[in-house]
């Protein structure tokens, strides 16, 4: 029996409505309990800010495209390296760190759970292999269905149950957690070098539209009773004027789930652009935020851009090619048969660049204009907007108008005429930050009942204690202290064990992988469906029996079974 008692913790635990109460937290065998024996090890938090472990609900840390980002970028690997030390392995990389690099740096910031935003089913085994070497966080992966032939054919045939059945079979086969649509239809069109411009463009050959894909997959997702909603990367990312496309996509979504949102719209900053071209490019955060404020069925994440060098990587292959034509740096692309694709290019976001400055402002605006923090979560779409190590700065920007103004003074001078940011007075408080970095994620992912994102009895003892007393620090003026504190926990506790302390990781951990197995009736078991099997055999280059990811690839196997309505 392993016991730990954290005393004098200033706890903010939004899922339980706890806002800055000083309390003790008792832990036994990795879970939070009512009380522990006198023999428990004691940590005195001395009133420091104590939150549930951070959860990143959209990050790119493991898998084929992430690894290719490393593979093609020795310059990025050189930009961040640490030696082997004690139980810690060597790390490399700044914007796309090695798996250990990701894990250690997230842990030092208090993050204990990560969702890989995009996993191509055919290459899922790779993602799971990298998860194994991401030792200090629990992991889960969204599975890409944007260009799935079987799904598109079923949609064309008007058979939503078959869409659900294919999703169920695939999630189970690849040990995936959620359903991801990246530029739905566009990734298939890109395998012909084409794209879809918005939600009404038909996909070549399949003759379904992105709107139909989004609607059908959302319905199918709810038929399967998946913990998470559909996770959407809208069409038309990164183009001036794309906000109308984004509003059109969000407008497709009915409110189908009482426990959580029906759609998770990711990195919305990249989808909130006005203007007819780069010359009149401007922020359209206001109409987007207004729209989301009226629709509880939508949760988004920021996709904040921070200035500096990073690597962009997404399943949205055509978008990356367009970026490549703007940047003229190196470009990688990787289309995946019958399923999806991906693209990668390095970028530098510059303060002196007007478009980049506007992008920076838009992310912050979305967070500040969305009334409920539960509906706009903090991300950079790591590493697309910036590497996750920039999160503390984003927290400080959201909490301090003064910091925003100071930064705003350094960006392109024409920015003020294109964005509402300077007029926004709102400063987020500690509670709202706690929602946007852990509680909101747990709710949106539907994992709070598994003991994630809160500190109630029975919860997993994933805890971050930050070296900061909220009664002593005024974030509005002391924003440097906020950045410092969120960059380096006093203690990061994972499954009841201290894994990082004051910027140093202490142990080699062992993560758990969460995945979903929807239980469907025999009639909807695609593993027995002759048409599905025949198409698989004819058009995939991997045998159907060799496709599923074996349980050997799951370190700590956390299977979530759902009772599907098919």
């Amino acid at each position: 029996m392993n016991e730990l008692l954290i005393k004098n913790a200033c706890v903010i635990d939004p899922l339980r409505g706890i806002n800055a109460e000083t309390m003790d937290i008792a832990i036994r065998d990795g879970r939070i309990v009512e009380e522990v024996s006198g023999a428990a090890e004691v940590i005195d938090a001395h009133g420091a800010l104590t939150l549930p472990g951070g959860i990143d609900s959209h990050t790119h840390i493991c898998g084929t495209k992430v690894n290719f980002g490393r593979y093609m970028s020795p310059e990025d690997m050189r930009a961040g390296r640490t030696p082997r030390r004690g139980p810690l392995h060597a790390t490399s990389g700044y914007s796309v760190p090695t798996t250990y690099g990701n894990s250690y740096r997230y842990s030092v910031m208090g993050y204990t759970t990560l969702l890989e935003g995009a996993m191509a089913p055919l290459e899922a085994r790779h993602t799971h292999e990298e998860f194994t070497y991401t030792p200090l966080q629990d992991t889960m992966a969204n599975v890409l269905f944007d260009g799935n032939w079987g799904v598109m054919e079923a949609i064309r045939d008007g058979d939503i149950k078959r869409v659900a059945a294919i999703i169920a079979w695939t999630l189970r086969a690849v040990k995936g957690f959620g359903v991801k649509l990246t530029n739905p239809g566009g990734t298939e069109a890109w395998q012909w070098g084409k794209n879809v411009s918005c939600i009404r463009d038909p996909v070549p050959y399949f003759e379904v539209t992105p709107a139909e894909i989004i609607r059908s997959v959302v319905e199918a997702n709810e038929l399967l009773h998946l913990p998470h909603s559909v996770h959407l990367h809208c069409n038309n990312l990164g183009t001036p004027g794309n906000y109308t496309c984004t509003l059109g996509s969000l407008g497709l979504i009915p409110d189908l789930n009482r426990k959580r949102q029906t759609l998770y719209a990711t990195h919305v900053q990249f989808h909130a652009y006005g203007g007819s071209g780069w010359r009149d490019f401007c922020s359209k955060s206001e109409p987007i935020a207004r729209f989301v404020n009226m629709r509880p069925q939508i949760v988004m994440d920021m996709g904040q851009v921070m200035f500096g060098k990073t690597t962009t990587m997404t399943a949205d292959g055509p978008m990356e090619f367009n970026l490549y034509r703007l940047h003229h740096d190196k470009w990688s692309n990787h289309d995946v048969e019958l399923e999806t694709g991906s693209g990668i290019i390095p970028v530098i976001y510059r303060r002196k660049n007007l478009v980049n400055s506007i992008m920076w402002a838009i992310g912050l605006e979305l967070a500040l204009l969305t009334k409920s923090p539960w509906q706009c979560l903090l991300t950079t779409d790591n590493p697309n907007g910036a590497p996750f190590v920039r999160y503390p700065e984003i927290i400080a920007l959201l909490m301090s108008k003064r910091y925003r103004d100071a930064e705003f003074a350094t960006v392109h001078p024409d920015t003020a005429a294109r964005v509402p940011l300077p007029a926004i007075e709102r400063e987020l408080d500690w509670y709202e930050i706690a929602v946007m970095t852990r509680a909101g994620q747990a709710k949106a992912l539907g994992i709070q009942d598994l003991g994630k994102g809160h500190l109630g009895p029975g919860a997993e003892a994933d805890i971050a204690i930050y070296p900061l007393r909220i009664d002593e620090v005024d974030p509005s003026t002391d924003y440097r202290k906020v950045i410092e504190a969120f960059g380096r926990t006093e203690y990061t506790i994972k499954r009841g064990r201290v894994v990082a302390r004051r910027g140093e990781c202490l142990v080699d951990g062992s993560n758990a992988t969460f995945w979903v197995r929807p239980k469907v009736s025999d009639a909807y078991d695609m593993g027995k469906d002759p048409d599905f099997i025949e198409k698989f055999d004819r058009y995939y280059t991997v045998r159907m029996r060799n496709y599923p990811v074996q349980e050997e690839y799951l370190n700590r196997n956390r299977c979530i079974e759902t009772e599907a309505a098919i």
Partner: protein
Amino acid sequence: MIVKDAVCPFCGCLCDDIEVEVEGNRVVAVANACELGTTKFMCEERLKGPILRDGDGWKEITYDEAIRYAADTLLSAERPLLYGWSGTHGEAQCVGVHMAELIRGVIDNTSSVCHGPSILAIQEVGHPGCTLGVVKNRADLVIYWGSNPIDAHPRHLSRYTRYADGFFLENAFRDRKVIVVDIRRTQTANIADEFVQIKPGGDYAVLSALRAIVQGKTETIPRTVAGVTREQLVRVANLCKGAKFGAVYFGVGLTMTRGKYKNIRNAIELVSELSRHTKFTISAMRGHYNVYGSNEVNTWMTGYPFGIDFSRGIAFYNPGETTAVDILARKECDAALIVGSDPAAHFPRRCLEHLADIPVIQIDPYPNATTAFCNVQIPVAVTGIDAVGTAYRMDGVPIRTRRVLSTDYPSDEEVLLRMYTLMQGAR
């Protein structure tokens, strides 16, 4: 007993539709595999147990003794080299990386003598590629450049290109054009619709000429480029631009000839240029069945695909300095671990002279040319035959191999883990 959907552990095609017939724990027949794969499945010339060099002969030793010897040798080395890795499964490669890190060694894989230059080119300009099934289902134009799949990747043509059915091709054989570019008329050239014969060393110039034509600068092209006529170059460029989906597959004929990584860079830039007109992709014809996996494992664990030097604790990468051939040629390394490869059959003489002077441990199921250079050889189970593990196909698709025989041989991973555990105890 017939094992279906077995995975062939020979070349980078990683065919996973093999049927292996087993009787009395021996492979008696192999269906679907090419000659290379069949030979590998049928091969029985394995080492029985670990052997230690003893004067001019060999002495049989136990696994415990061999593993202890290997661990001690590497622990006492100042600059150990851990080389090979392409002929084993990913789980073993991961242990290899941890081991290199622990003993501050250099870990390198066979890419440094095959597609290393391709990787350098990708690090300069990126890599527009795709999985093999995308080509199979869509490509109406396939170009083999400096590669001869009929000999080296026999089923590449039948599974993915020339003879493969494809979803979007009504009659794949008729509708798909194949161009072969090489310095000699290979067997693959004989089944091509168009053969472009280049004078040795002329690849870079021909690629540049094609890029110029694609960019609309045909008038700048001389009458012949490296032995190829302007007419043919224009014809090839037009075939490329007119294709709905084009795929280039290049081999070491482009990678390891004059120009090396600059050839690959030029080829990738041609494909990037063509991508402005139509859909085009390019990929390397990787050799060993899991050489790409070794690059992948190294990359997620260290940040670099090959040639990683841990001597200063951090992962340091400088191909040409931290690659096996260079470290051996400079006589830097003082002990070597060879896993799943046969450097003695491929390395320059100078490297082998040094290899003969230092203690060498080889982990490999078969006696090979490197056996003659090693002090200890530890036989292991063969991944895909009597060991299970992960391999990455040439296009990055990871597949778990199947076990078709059960033997008492330990896997590479087991042997390496036991070595690593001993080393951890000592450090």
